[in-house]
């Protein structure tokens, strides 16, 4: 029963953290996800997400907080992948695929060699929003603030680079730097989302809310706001459903998003045919 869920949220701190983490993650995922969708960089974002495991594994091995290892790893992989995609046009997908797998392999290697029980590996890969600490909720909030502030500052440039790279270049923008910078913001968003749905399913939250918003709303700003709202709806309803029926939270969130996307696509197609 949903009422049970509301009562539980009112009484359990870990659920309050999960609710907050879900809401805050939706902000970054709506804003950056919109760029991922319109620039068609889902594959590149997937590469960054998976390479992050390398950094988390290394941090874990040295006894640091995996999340703090994830931030430099995500930024580094964003810069490398961005540079590769700018330079090696024709072999881009192969090289990104390689970085994707090698990053994961590095992570698994370090986690395997870390003394003690490696239960965390599972939660990195598939997320565990119920385990998000109050401290990590703060971290997500700070990352959100950084991401949104930078997008507000660079909105014109990011949009121009996504829309028409060559024209942006003629306008004197440093297109390569802006593109890699945007990928760095994707990387920070990935770090946030890893806690909610895990590395493997990051790409769902990065693309589906924005894609759904894009089917119904006009313009990037509206798409971003709509995607944030959709993300909030998915994380919160996913949390409630998973709590009520004892299902894994990350997978429930992603399935709800996926089913909604499918429904939205069908509805949109029918609506357009009706005209």
């Amino acid at each position, binding site marked *: 029963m949903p009422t049970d869920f509301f009562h539980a949220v009112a009484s359990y701190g870990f659920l309050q953290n999960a609710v907050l983490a879900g809401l805050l993650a939706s902000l970054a995922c709506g804003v950056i996800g919109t760029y991922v969708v319109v620039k068609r960089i889902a594959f590149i974002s997937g590469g960054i997400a998976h390479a992050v495991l390398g950094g988390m594994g290394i941090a874990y091995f040295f006894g640091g907080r995996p999340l703090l290892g994830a931030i430099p790893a995500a930024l580094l992989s964003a810069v490398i992948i961005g540079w590769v995609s700018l330079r090696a046009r024709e072999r881009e997908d192969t090289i990104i695929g390689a970085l994707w797998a090698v990053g994961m392999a590095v992570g698994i290697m370090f986690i395997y060699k870390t003394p003690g029980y490696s239960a965390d590996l599972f939660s990195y890969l598939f997320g565990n929003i119920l385990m998000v600490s109050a401290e990590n909720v703060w971290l997500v909030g700070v990352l959100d603030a950084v991401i949104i502030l930078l997008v*507000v*500052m660079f909105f014109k440039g990011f949009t121009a680079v996504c829309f028409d790279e060559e*024209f942006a270049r*003629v*306008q004197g*923008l440093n297109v390569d730097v802006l593109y890699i910078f945007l990928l760095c913001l994707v990387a920070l968003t990935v770090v946030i989302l890893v806690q909610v749905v895990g590395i493997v399913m990051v790409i769902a939250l990065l693309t589906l809310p924005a894609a759904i918003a894009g089917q119904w709303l006009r*313009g*990037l700003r509206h798409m971003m706001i709509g995607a944030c709202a959709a993300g909030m709806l998915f994380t919160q309803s996913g949390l409630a459903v998973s709590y009520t029926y004892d299902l894994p939270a990350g997978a429930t969130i992603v399935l709800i998003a996926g089913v909604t996307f499918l429904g939205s696509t069908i509805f949109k197609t029918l609506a357009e045919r009706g005209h």
Partner: protein
Amino acid sequence: MNEKVTPAIAIRSVTFGFTEEPVLEDIFLDIAPKDFIGIVGPNGSGKTTLLKLILGLYTPDKGFVEVLGKTPEKARPNLGYVPQFTNFDRHFPVTVLDAVMMGRLSSTRTFGPFTASDKERAQDALRTVGSEHLGKRLIGRLSGGQLQRVLLARALVSAPSILLLDEPTANIDVKAEESFFDLLQRLNDRVTIALVSHDIGFITSHVNRVACVNRTLVCHPTTKISSETIAAMYERPVEAIEHSRKISGQKHG
């Protein structure tokens, strides 16, 4: 008659290629202020490449390009560029007004959103091309002719002195094409225009001069020639331009 005009665009002995084989070889071309030149040639002849050299998107292997007496990079704020349709995603979720404002990027502030004055100028540019009623529409909802005018507005929004257009009529119907050229001819009172096209027959009735490109370049006057353009043309004699390859299947004006 001998009054020397600084050319709007000066291309001197330019050779450029992506591989060992040059796409363009030993190109000389002067384009006078207020000239309206058509750059024609078959597919793969290097005409778009020539336009991108003028824009400074490519750097010549040999020779140099000057725009308004400056390097192309420095002259960019004075250049209005209308790219081919294939350069961008036509279904990108951006409204016409927002797309036109992107032409202000070189002149507006670096951080934060566009200003009220950017918006005003964008509306003015839309008015110039007769599309002020389309501002709120998504670019994906425009016809080919409408989109072409919007791209022209984006190029005009920073009041450039030179307009460079790449195949502007490739995706629009004949009627829209006619009125688009009429619009360009009116703009030609204020700006220099260089237009790339594969369709030599159509453009010769609108432009002052035709430059035929096929690795090398040769210039031809058309019937409508103003005194200004004659001056610019004879500044560099036509005979000095190597004309080693004829463009097959196309008449030279």
